[in-house]
């Protein structure tokens, strides 16, 4: 099940996004692309790489996808190998942006086009960004709004974070600020780490013991939120005023939202579409030169009201 | 007598550089006790392992009960009533005595075991053997001697038709050995065939109907017990006649080298004695008397709770074998597999291991010196090995013991403690070791020797201490050193 919402990528609405046509014209030769991705154990990145692969295939390009496994060293290694292979384009979705600066410099010296995604590696020719803090803020605001509207402005809140990853720390901060923005009286009673369904379950089962009155849970991704969802349902706490929100707009989350249950919201960042856009951006850079401005992908909150547009 | 029960034909077993067995044919008759004798490395253990299928012979055939056996393996051998006590330790340390005795053929149903019944039957068997060991004890908590008794109990508890014993008495003292004789006699009366391997002539003549001699992997001759004698066996084994068994004792001994005063720990109790220069001091006692514990405490292996040690009149503290070695002491332990040899390592490694300081400068080894050291001792002790790079685990039991001896001789220490030094060693080699010990004391070194072989103890020692239950119960010297006297002191 692929969680892309917009295969074409034009729905991301990013300014400066090149169309497939300009790309096609610019690249007469068959490009060789290497893509090192932060962690393929994460569904989001699987989708992102699927998008890259699909678009490259349409254009007749070669792609090598490398799994960084959450280890910056692996990515340095991979980029070194890409340079030796004399690829035309290196795409990086970094575990850690700073870690890759020196090797990106080497790639540039070797005349290779470098595109960053998610985090910018200094020296890249273009950068597609998911601003992490804003991304967290987006779901935080949904939760805060819920508290303000349905819970009289106050509630016990649990945040499912994942401080083992740098970018997610930013995101969790965004969630917190988003909630407090609309519901300054909300009480955040628990922060627990989970990035998978199973860990989400374990965390929520225990949180419910310590804080049976939790009404709102916001999670740094849908996987963790789905775990929370299972637990709240099993504990029969799925009252009409309960709120669960996640991020990434995975198909499973969308399905839960559509059921009009306690899974209330997620945020779409269209990973497959973004993957396609990465390829097109590379083509554009080769044709027209580096793009200095970050290319922001759109973030669209998905709730019951608009979920049908995203479900496949 | 009639058909042989077990007929070996032309059995050979080759290892790289070693013909462990070279075309051996032997017949074993029903109901006989048939001993096999030969020097260390003659191939005795290898031979019996081919009988039980523990190893596969390179060539040759075995007929059992008139049937040709091909592809023998231990499971099948046991089913066919061939059971064996191997020379190597073959118990399960983490299981109880009873569980070991019935290991592989537990009492109970098809799936379940009946612990109560196994314990009860084990008690019976053990008391038959005249020992008082709880069937519920874990084997790993027993001393070597008791472990051996458990092995014997295990071998006789089934209803074997052929019972093979490879040096079963090596870790035992006289009273247990006596019990073993009775058992063997009884089993023989019941019609069991017993194949018995030993280096002790006393046992061989006491038990055997027939005796087969092997040398260098070859069959030499089978003799009727009545028709032969010790010196004939020895010369068949060694290939030449051997002279006087024990070398003459020293005429006099010198000053005190080691004084032990009031030494105590949980196993030994207020022990005091003196070892003199140029002396061989024997220690006698039954299994469990605490002799091993005493020398371990002296050597710094186990902690002591009271007492002091003086070396050449100076008080010393020994808390670790390192300290003991620093005072030029050496200990040849009784349990060579666990405490003596590094089995996976080669002969050279083992021989040089305790004296690396002598072949190294600033921590760097001189390979040449090391090799010479090893080859010298291989020659001096006539260690039977294809070379100094052979792994010790591939040597015969007796030759492993020689390697451990060599390790300590190489340290050139002044005070040597031998705990059962000739256990599992053949006559020829024993004599070499005896001569060597005498030479050492001749050079004004001193030796403490623990032995469970009374004749050896008496033949070699200048003086004998007797221990019982962790305490010294007496001391004998000169003409007073008789078996009876020592035994009375050891048992009271």
């Amino acid at each position: 099940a692929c969680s892309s919402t917009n295969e074409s990528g034009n729905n991301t609405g990013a300014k400066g996004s090149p169309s497939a046509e300009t790309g096609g014209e610019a690249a007469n030769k068959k490009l060789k692309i290497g893509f090192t991705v932060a962690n393929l154990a994460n569904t989001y990145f699987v989708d992102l790489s699927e998008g890259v692969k699909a678009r490259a295939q349409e254009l007749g390009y070669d792609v090598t996808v490398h799994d960084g496994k959450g280890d910056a060293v692996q990515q340095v290694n991979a980029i070194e190998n890409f340079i030796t292979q004399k690829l035309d384009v290196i795409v990086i979705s970094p575990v850690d942006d700073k870690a890759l600066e020196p090797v990106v410099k080497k790639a540039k010296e070797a005349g290779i086009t470098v595109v960053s995604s998610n985090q910018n590696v200094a020296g890249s020719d273009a950068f597609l960004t998911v601003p992490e803090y804003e991304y967290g803020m987006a779901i935080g605001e949904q939760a805060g709004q819920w508290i303000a509207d349905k819970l009289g402005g106050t509630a016990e809140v649990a945040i499912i974070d994942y401080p083992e990853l740098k970018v997610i720390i930013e995101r969790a901060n965004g969630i917190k600020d988003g909630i407090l923005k609309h519901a300054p009286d909300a009480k955040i009673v628990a922060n627990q780490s989970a990035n998978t369904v199973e860990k989400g379950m374990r965390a929520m089962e225990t949180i419910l013991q310590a804080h049976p009155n939790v009404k709102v849970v916001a999670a740094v991704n849908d996987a963790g939120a789905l775990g929370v969802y299972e637990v709240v349902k099993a504990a029969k706490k799925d009252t009409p005023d309960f709120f669960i929100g996640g991020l990434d707009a995975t198909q499973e989350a969308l399905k839960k939202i559509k059921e009009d249950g306690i899974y209330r919201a997620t945020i779409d960042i269209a990973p497959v579409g973004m993957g396609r856009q990465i390829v097109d951006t590379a083509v554009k850079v080769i044709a027209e030169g580096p793009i200095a401005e970050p290319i922001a992908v759109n973030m669209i909150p998905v709730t019951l009201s608009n979920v049908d547009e995203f479900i496949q | 007598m009639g058909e042989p029960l077990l007929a070996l034909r032309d059995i050979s077993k080759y290892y790289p550089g070693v013909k462990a067995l070279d075309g051996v044919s032997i017949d074993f008759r029903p109901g006989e006790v048939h001993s096999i004798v030969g020097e260390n490395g003659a191939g005795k253990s290898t031979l019996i392992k081919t009988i039980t299928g523990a190893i596969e012979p390179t060539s040759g055939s075995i007929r059992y009960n008139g049937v040709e056996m091909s592809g023998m393996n231990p499971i099948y051998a046991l089913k066919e009533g061939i059971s064996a006590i191997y020379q190597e330790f073959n118990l399960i340390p983490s299981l109880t005595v009873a569980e070991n005795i019935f290991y592989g053929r537990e009492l109970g149903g098809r799936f379940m075991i009946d612990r109560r019944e196994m314990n009860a039957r084990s008690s019976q068997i053990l008391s038959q053997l005249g020992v008082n060991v709880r069937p519920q004890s874990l084997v790993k908590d027993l001393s070597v001697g008791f472990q051996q008794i458990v092995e014997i109990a295990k071998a006789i508890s089934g209803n074997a038709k052929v019972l093979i014993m490879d040096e079963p008495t090596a870790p035992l003292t006289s009273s247990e050995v006596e019990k073993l004789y009775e058992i063997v006699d009884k089993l023989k009366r019941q019609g069991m065939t017993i194949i018995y391997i030993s280096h002790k002539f006393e046992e061989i003549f006491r038990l055997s109907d027939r005796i087969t001699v092997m040398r260098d992997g070859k069959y030499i001759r089978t003799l009727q017990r009545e028709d032969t004698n010790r010196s004939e066996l020895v010369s068949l084994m060694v290939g030449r006649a051997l002279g006087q068994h024990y070398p003459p004792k020293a005429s006099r001994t010198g000053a005190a080298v080691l004084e032990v005063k009031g030494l105590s720990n949980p196993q030994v109790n207020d022990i005091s004695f003196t070892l003199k220069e140029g002396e061989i001091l024997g220690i006698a006692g039954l299994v469990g008397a605490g002799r091993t514990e005493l020398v371990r405490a002296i050597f710094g292996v186990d902690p002591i709770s009271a007492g002091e040690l003086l070396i050449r009149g100076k008080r010393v503290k020994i808390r670790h074998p390192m300290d003991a070695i620093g005072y030029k002491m050496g200990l040849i332990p009784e349990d060579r597999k666990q405490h003596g040899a590094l089995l996976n390592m080669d002969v050279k490694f083992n021989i040089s291991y305790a004296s690396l300081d002598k072949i190294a400068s600033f921590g760097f080894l001189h390979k040449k010196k090391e090799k010479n050291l090893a080859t010298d001792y291989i020659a001096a002790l006539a260690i039977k090995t294809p070379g100094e790079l052979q792994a010790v685990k591939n040597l015969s039991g007796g030759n492993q013991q020689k390697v451990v001896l060599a390790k300590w001789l190489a340290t050139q220490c002044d005070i040597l403690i031998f705990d059962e030094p000739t256990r599992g060693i053949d006559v020829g080699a024993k004599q070499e070791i005896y001569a060597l010990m005498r030479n050492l004391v001749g050079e004004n070194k001193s030796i403490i020797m623990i032995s469970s072989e009374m004749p050896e103890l008496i033949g070699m020692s200048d003086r004998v201490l007797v221990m019982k239950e962790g305490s010294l119960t007496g001391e004998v010297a000169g003409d007073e050193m008789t078996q009876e006297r020592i035994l009375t002191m050891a048992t009271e």
Partner: protein
Amino acid sequence: MPIRAILVKYGIYIVLLLLVFFFSVASDAFLSVDNLLNILRQVSIVGIVAVGMTFVILTAGIDLSIGSIIGVSAVLAAKLMLFGVHPALAFVLTLVAGIVIGLVNTYFIHEIQIPALIVTLATLTALRGIAYIITGGLPVYGLPEGYSFIGQGYVMGIPVPVILMLACFAVGYFVLEKTRFGRYVYGVGSNEEASRLSGVNVRKIKYIAYCLSGFLSALAGLVLLSRVNSGQPTAGTGYELDVIIGVVLGGVSMNGGEGRISGVITGILIMGVLTNGMILLNISEYYQLVVKGAVLLLAVSLDYVSKKRRVKVAHT
């Protein structure tokens, strides 16, 4: 009984009690039936696998592939059901797959004589690849309705995974303590050559141990699948460490031949109580790691120090 003797005999159990006591005092939420069932449910997957691992380690082996078996089983069963295979059949097929993996492991370990650590590291790696290949890296959703019972259902108020785990422990206990096969598991681990010479079919014992581990890991994968309602290709990653910690904390020796199921349960519970208690106290993830490491070390120290003392006692 003097305190020292109690410590000696029940070291690890006492650690568990101390932890329970501590968390009961520190958090109101800890000592409730609900929360205790939570803990049991949360350790159930690791617990089930630990029974198989106990057998393997007792034979002086090790099975690092269990985490990947969990992953493969979860996605395999999910895919089968999505393809319309009846859940019961999918269930059985997956368990069989677990056994087959056990066979492969044992083949290399026993016939080719490669160290178990290497063999199961290799299958750990390869099987994780297979889980990814089966799913294309994406979770498998859309399981049939009733399937959630194994992971989420209750029988008489007790979660089904807990019942499964307790059943596994009970059977494991029984087999190890009361049967011939159990004796041979200890015997093979303690002295393989002696076992062979005593007529024990060593090969068979090893095959059964690793196949049991494969089977129980597959069962755990099925429970996990049902518990999270989706087949995750990453499921079970890193579980080998949790399982080994539990088993060895419970007193099973890595050298084989020593240890008991009752200790293993306790070891698993210690880790479960610790995790649960720290979440209740809202301790940060970072400090949780430090505390876990420290408790592990202290718990085993207590156990070993008291055992060392026992040896000394035995000598007197």
